[in-house]
């Protein structure tokens, strides 16, 4: 390193925390600091989560009665569409990667920032731009196609704001691609000395796998939506059966992205859970290498199974068979992960602060979500379950029970690092338990409804289904409290919370070796890694 380079690094360094570096609008909106960009993302997706959640609340309220009494059926269709669009593309996909990932990836590998900070800021702006398009469409009258945009309904028959929403998702897609690209390059090129691939925390492995999917799947969605939007605008296209086009082609292209997208949502959650469980068991993750390989396997095989969304779509039975078989194979690494987390508790020193409760909740709900996925992968059984509430319950167990539980766990776990304050432990444990109970009460009845045959996207349903819908709506109100509570006490803790030490959990990992909150350049001197990930010392005796 020549002297000029060192000089440039000196000027970059400030010995204060990243939060004290200025509070005017420019210091935030033009920041290149990955930590500040992470905060920007957190604020943005919290707002969007609020919109999506409000739509969910309306849906559950409306479903209390068999006749749609709260809203018209048209409004209901727009509610579930906007719920899906916002929750999938503007909350779940960016949730862990863009917030915790942005904040932690450079710190966990001992880097000063991501490889391309400007690109990182640009992807936040793209995300906001996409979000604004979507919110515009919402205000202008909404969209009623569902988040799946199936042709030819979306291309020919819907009279709602399909084009604006597709544009919003298209733009947000570029945000995903740029974030994924940034993470991959950063993880490849910016690791601190001694940070070999198999010393990386599993959270980094998860981010790496997620980024691969973001980069490889998102362009397919972008172009598919473009085909759909152009077809809608010009009244001609390859999905239109009136000209001999094939509506199933749209489904193939859509699910080529959207099935891997499920792994974009859940793989980061696996990474977060691994960090938390290992820390609060004071044990290394059981079968670390196996876990790393399993994460990569899930990402890779995830691209081969999309057709299991189409078993009754008119896809050929032979194609269905192949996709079913591949789906069973991709579920094996997921199963292994659950067993390995469980085994990590064995002979540990297990404690139960709020993040651990969230992580254990994640394991439970992800297990149920994964197991019910096997029901759906079974060809003969899926005929009964497809497009019913069984599917709704299944993917909420994975994406809300799994991902959102882990997201909240991660927010609590790294809250001291991000803000420099401790959150109130009692309240946090309470809301973790409340979320778990509320979640099960909301979504477990939907499995029963599904096997009974209640279709998705029905504002009106036969009266014999009402009892389970009432259970579900009651659970949803608990769940809502479980989500609103943290918002209140976390904000409270920003001012009144106890000041956090650098490493409140005695956790391993480079991010805990710097101050809370960290300085702008993360580390005053580049750390040198000499030990494996999760090098917790195994306690031989209880008080030793």
């Amino acid at each position, binding site marked *: 390193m020549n002297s000029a380079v060192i000089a440039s690094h000196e000027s970059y360094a400030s010995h204060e925390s990243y939060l004290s570096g200025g509070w005017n609008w420019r210091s935030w909106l033009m920041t290149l600091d990955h930590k500040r960009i992470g905060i920007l993302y957190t604020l943005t997706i919290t707002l969007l989560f609020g919109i999506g959640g409000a739509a969910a609340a309306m849906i559950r309220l409306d479903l209390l009665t068999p006749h*749609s009494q709260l809203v018209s059926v048209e409004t209901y269709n727009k509610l579930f569409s906007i719920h899906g669009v916002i929750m999938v593309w503007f909350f779940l996909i960016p949730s862990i990667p863009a917030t915790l990932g942005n904040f932690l990836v450079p710190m966990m590998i001992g880097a000063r920032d991501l490889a391309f900070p400007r690109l990182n800021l640009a992807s936040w702006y793209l995300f906001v731009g996409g979000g604004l398009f979507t919110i515009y469409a919402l205000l202008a009258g909404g969209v009623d196609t569902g988040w799946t945009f*199936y042709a030819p309904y979306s291309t020919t028959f819907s009279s709602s704001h399909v084009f604006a929403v597709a544009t919003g998702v298209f733009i947000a897609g570029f945000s995903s691609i740029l974030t994924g690209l940034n993470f991959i390059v950063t993880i490849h090129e910016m690791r601190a000395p001694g940070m070999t691939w198999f010393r990386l925390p599993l959270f980094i492995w998860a981010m790496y796998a997620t980024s691969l999917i973001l980069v490889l799947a998102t362009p397919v969605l972008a172009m598919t939506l473009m085909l759909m939007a152009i077809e809608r605008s010009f009244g001609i296209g390859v999905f239109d059966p009136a000209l001999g086009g094939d509506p199933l082609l749209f489904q193939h292209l859509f699910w080529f992205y959207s099935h891997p997208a499920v792994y974009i949502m859940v793989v980061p959650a696996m990474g977060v859970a691994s960090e938390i469980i290992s820390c609060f068991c004071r044990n290394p993750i059981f079968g670390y290498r196996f876990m790393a390989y399993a994460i990569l396997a899930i990402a890779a095989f995830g691209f081969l199974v999309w057709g299991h969304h189409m078993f009754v779509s*008119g896809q050929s039975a032979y194609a269905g*068979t192949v996709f079913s078989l591949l789906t069973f194979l991709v579920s094996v690494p997921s199963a*292994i992960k659950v067993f390995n987390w469980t085994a990590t508790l064995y002979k540990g*020193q297990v404690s139960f602060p709020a993040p651990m409760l969230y992580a254990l909740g994640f394991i439970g709900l992800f297990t149920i979500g994964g197991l019910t996925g096997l029901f759906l992968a079974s060809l003969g*059984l899926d*005929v009964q379950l497809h497009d019913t509430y069984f599917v709704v319950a299944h993917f909420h167990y994975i994406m809300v029970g799994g991902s959102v539980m882990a997201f909240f766990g991660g927010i609590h776990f790294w809250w001291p690092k991000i803000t420099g304050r401790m959150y109130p432990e009692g309240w946090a444990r309470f809301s973790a338990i409340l979320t778990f109970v509320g979640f099960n009460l909301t979504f477990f009845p939907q499995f029963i409804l599904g096997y009974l045959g209640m279709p*998705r996207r029905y504002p009106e349903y036969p009266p014999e289904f009402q009892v389970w819908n009432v259970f579900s709506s009651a659970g949803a109100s608990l769940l809502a409290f479980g989500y609103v509570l943290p918002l209140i006490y976390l904000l409270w803790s920003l001012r009144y919370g106890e000041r956090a030490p650098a490493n409140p959990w005695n956790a391993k990992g480079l991010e805990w070796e710097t101050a809370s909150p960290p300085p702008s350049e993360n580390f005053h001197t580049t750390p040198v890694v000499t030990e494996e990930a999760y090098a917790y010392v195994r306690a031989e005796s209880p008080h030793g």
Partner: protein
Amino acid sequence: MDSVPFFPDRASTMAGQVDNLYFAWLVLSGVVALAVAVLIVWFAIRYRQGSAADRSLADAAEHEKKMHRIEIVWTVVPIALFLAMFVWSAEVYYQNVTVPKDAMPIYVVAKQWMWHAEHRGGEREINELHVPVDRPVELVMTSQDVIHSLSIPDFRVKQDVLPGRYTTLWFTANRPGEYHLFCTQYCGASHSHMVGRVVVMEPAAFEGWLSAHANVPTMAARGEQRYRELGCNGCHGAQATVRAPRLEGLFGRPVQLRDGRSVLADERFIRDAVLLPSQDVPAGYELSMPSFRGQIGEEELLEIVEYVKSLGNATQERVP
């Protein structure tokens, strides 16, 4: 809300088989979920921070080896189980999609937001489907607009109904009664109103229902009328001067095509031949048929299909 339902009725021959799969998965996943839950709770209590449980490992290397074996076990066992379940569920699925030869066809046209069904005898119904008990029924379905999906949960059957194409679904109802019929593919504003009922009747009652509604010409007769109106007999008829394939005995047979392929003359083939004649030109013929796209509705097209079927299946029983 007189009783809390846990389980749909079993009103078709498929229902029991699908239920067996469902129960098998319930048991299997119940065991796994319970095992994981018990282990987590047990470890969490036994190895809670500060507990006196023994955490020492006698021999680290030996432990490592043992753990490695455990990992292999819980990788291989799920693979084996999944493969077994895959084979079983695929077997059930193939039964569900393989239409028996003797199935009684009913033609269904879906549109926003109603189900239109037509029996071979010409009986038409909307959002209702009357079928006899203990007899295989095949639904030949298409859509006039968007994708719909016909689902009868108590029969454990479901199939998407696509525009521009025929899909089929079959069942043998085995318990008289009334059952829900849902559209399960989101199809627009009144998606949740696109529901109906399936009425399963004893054979005698079904015959009665048919004869009560049989005051219209049969489907094949309507199809023949349409066939003449559109001038099809000018080429396909016995006195035709233009060389065109004869339709008698065509249905259900393989057709040799000009480009060397061979296709089965099923409902889809006849549909395509009317709408897109240049796609599958039979061997030995020149393409001279115009496309009838835009000149014929889905229901009329199904009547023509039924007419062609009636020409070919002289041996098979006609309208019951």
